[in-house]
């Protein structure tokens, strides 16, 4: 994969055609986000600023916080509710040179038991009279996993992402995009707190817990196709499909469709529907027949067989249309997502007094609210 990316990079380097893109616009966004579902609430701000300078560079910076209050299904059945805060900082630099746009970025995420540092690099070029944009990207992440209450516990994990994308203008109303991403992870890949359960007739409830054991590598491939179409009455329809597979045997399909409709008086409405389904990892089980049943054991519902749907309604309002001091224009935005999760092989262990393995299958709903203000200057 790496060699092929190098070849495409080389090819892009030698093609002299019409112009590459324009630097992203200067803007500042203040977002307040809130997630509430499955016993978990997460809130926080996300601030993003982007500014051009020297007519060749665009710098961006993001400050993001998650304040977590977790009484999730895993937490209440095997531990006690906790509060935590995660802070993430990102900086990025875009460089426009002739026909190329290059970007580098660095992200650091910190919480009391996990540190993640990610470096990313990307390059893109417009070809075919600017009808086509080819882009390549690479990210390298180094994480350190800790465990609360265990000062001696420290494990590392490394991630590498390889991205390839092509976006294409097909007609004056239609744009499409194709994208591929391969991700490889190495190191300590599970959650140091989560446990799996196995049948144990010696206990009152019929099952016992032991630590998860994950493989030390994971490699995944994802490919997606998306399109955006301009409707004659000034609206946009978009659709996207993604296919995913990895070496843990998880297969997933994502499909999304959405509609954007602006009206007079500066309002724009968005609606979208997304559906996701996945099959379980080959070492996942809700209930293992006995202790140490196989080499790798997982009971993380994220690796189980499940389906989820999300419905979004959004509204944006144009503010400062005639500008204000150095601000050219702005928008006020509210997005509300309703998410529904249904698990096919993960059971709700809050229900007791039934034979192990017959507890009801777990499902939950979540509401995600985003409120943000954007300024362009």
């Amino acid at each position, binding site marked *: 994969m790496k060699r*092929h990316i190098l*070849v495409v990079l*080389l090819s892009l380097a*030698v*093609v002299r055609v019409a112009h590459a893109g*324009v630097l992203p616009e200067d803007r500042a966004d203040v977002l307040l986000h809130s997630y509430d579902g499955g016993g978990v609430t997460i809130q926080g701000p996300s601030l993003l600023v982007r500014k051009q300078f020297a*007519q060749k560079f665009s710098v961006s910076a993001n400050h993001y916080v998650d304040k977590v209050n977790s009484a999730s299904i895993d937490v209440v059945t095997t531990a006690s509710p906790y509060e935590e805060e995660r802070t993430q900082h990102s900086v990025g630099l875009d460089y426009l040179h002739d026909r190329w746009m290059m970007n580098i970025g660095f992200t650091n995420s910190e919480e009391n038991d996990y540190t993640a540092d990610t470096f990313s690099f990307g390059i893109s070029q417009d070809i075919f009279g*600017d009808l086509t944009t080819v882009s390549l990207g690479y990210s390298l992440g180094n994480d350190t996993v800790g465990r609360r209450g265990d000062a001696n516990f420290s494990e590392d994990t490394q991630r590498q992402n390889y991205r390839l994308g092509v976006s294409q203008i097909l007609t004056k109303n239609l744009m499409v995009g194709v994208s591929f991403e391969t991700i490889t992870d190495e190191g300590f890949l599970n959650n140091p707190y989560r446990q799996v359960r196995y049948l144990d007739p010696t206990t009152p409830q019929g099952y016992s817990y032991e630590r998860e054991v994950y493989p030390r590598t994971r490699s995944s491939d994802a490919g997606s196709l998306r399109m955006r179409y301009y409707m004659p009455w000034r609206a946009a329809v978009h659709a996207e499909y993604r296919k995913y597979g990895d070496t843990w045997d998880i297969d997933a399909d994502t499909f999304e469709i959405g509609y954007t409709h602006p009206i007079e008086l500066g309002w724009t409405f968005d609606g979208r529907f997304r559906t996701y389904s996945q099959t379980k990892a080959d070492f996942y089980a809700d209930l293992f027949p006995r202790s140490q049943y196989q080499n790798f054991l997982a009971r993380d519902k994220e690796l189980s067989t499940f389906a989820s749907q999300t419905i979004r309604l959004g509204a944006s309002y144009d503010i400062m249309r005639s500008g204000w001091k150095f601000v050219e224009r702005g928008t006020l935005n509210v997005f509300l997502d309703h998410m529904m999760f249904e698990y096919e092989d993960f059971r709700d262990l809050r229900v007791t007094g039934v034979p192990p393995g017959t507890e009801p299958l777990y499902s939950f709903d979540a509401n995600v609210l985003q409120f943000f203000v954007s300024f362009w200057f």
Partner: protein
Amino acid sequence: MLRAFSVLVMTTLVATLAWAATVSGPAPAFTLQSNGGQQVSVASLKGKVVMVNFWATWCVPCRQEMPHLQALYEKYNGLGFELLAVNVEKDNVEGARKWLEETPVTFPVLFDPNNGVTKLYKVQTMPTTVLIGRDGTMRFIHHGYKPGYENDYQTQIRALLRE
């Protein structure tokens, strides 16, 4: 196989190095309505150095370029330099006028809603700027606009004015 491919690509690089910003031939004649309500014809400007700039309100580099074109017009109009800004939008005379109120220019803005002139000049990018010499032939063409292009325009205008 990929190695051979890379070699092929390198060869093409050498071949395409001849991408030039010069253009030749007589400037195609046209007459368009200006925002002042008059009919402006490029042929009537023979003897002067003419810049024809194709732009649209939805094109960000076009909007960035306008103040620089205004500066060049103010500096060289008295010395025999003319500038015609051709708006290529099919149905947006009102929108263009409104934008010009906020970013006023003193050179004529012409409207080409049927894109006849745009096709005549084989416009490939937005914006496109063509420089025509005193003899009515096309001399330079600029595809797109990037900050710094206005320096090239100035150099070329001065060279053409000296003729």
